């Protein structure tokens, strides 16, 4: 399956590995923080709205 990389196999594979890991990490952190912040904001807005309604 994997093409013959000759004597540079380690070089090529490790640079692909390192890059893909870094990219995946970046995307994962982005999505994780995005979800968390989105949920936090929704909760806060909800709380303020119910409070505003309660206070009339």
């Amino acid at each position: 399956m994997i093409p013959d990389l000759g004597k540079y196999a380690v070089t090529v594979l490790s640079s692909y590995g390192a890059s893909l890991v870094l990219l995946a990490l970046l995307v994962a952190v982005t999505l994780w923080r995005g979800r968390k912040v989105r949920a936090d904001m929704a909760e806060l807005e909800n709380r303020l709205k119910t409070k505003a309604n309660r206070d009339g």
Partner: protein
Amino acid sequence: MSLWEYANPKKFLTTSERVLPVFWWLSGACIVIGLIWGFFFTPDDYRQGSTVKIIYLHVPSALMAINAWLMMLVASLIWLIRRHHVSALAARAAAPVGATMTVIALVTGAIWGQPMWGTWWAWDPRLTSFLILFLFYLGYIALWSAIEDPDTAADLTSVLCLVGSVFAILSRYAVNFWNQGLHQGASVMRAGAITGTDTEEKVSNIFFFPLMVCMVGFVLLFIALVLYRTGTEIRARRIRALMARERMAA
């Protein structure tokens, strides 16, 4: 309809929400196709052997490392001149992406340098200026996270971005000058020529097309990430403002 309408945070959120999936999928597709094409279906280079496959990661990330800084520069200018909050937050959102791209370029370059130049690192002007670019990213990100008030932070980081750009260019020339003093470093200079711009003609079509696909993929990925992260920054700022509001009411 003016483009500036999207400077309204709420409008930006709804619009970016709609277009984001397109960017995510397109960028994913391009990167996967480009990398698979490049990795599996291109031959080895006659001189560099299979290491030429690294180019599909190295060049797009190097490209985006610089372009991200340029985008931040433009966004900073927009903030300073027109004071649209979204553009300041977009600059903030782009910085970590650009920094990651710089790291990828540095790491792949270093790994590549080992077989090609026989060393992981040489103080070649281009490599050195990339390292300096990375330092500027670090300072920019650190300044953003150190300042409490978001508007103050936006102003200060924007000015830092402007001044930093000027100094980055100055450094680039300084580094060029500095390493010419290196008389014994012919091997480094020859190796440096490999990364020179004139290689583009030498890159034959067989390598060129998958490379293009990868570059497009990286650009799209950058856009997707920045759009998404800008949304996150907008929400984070709203959370801050709402908490201040709650405190004031209390």
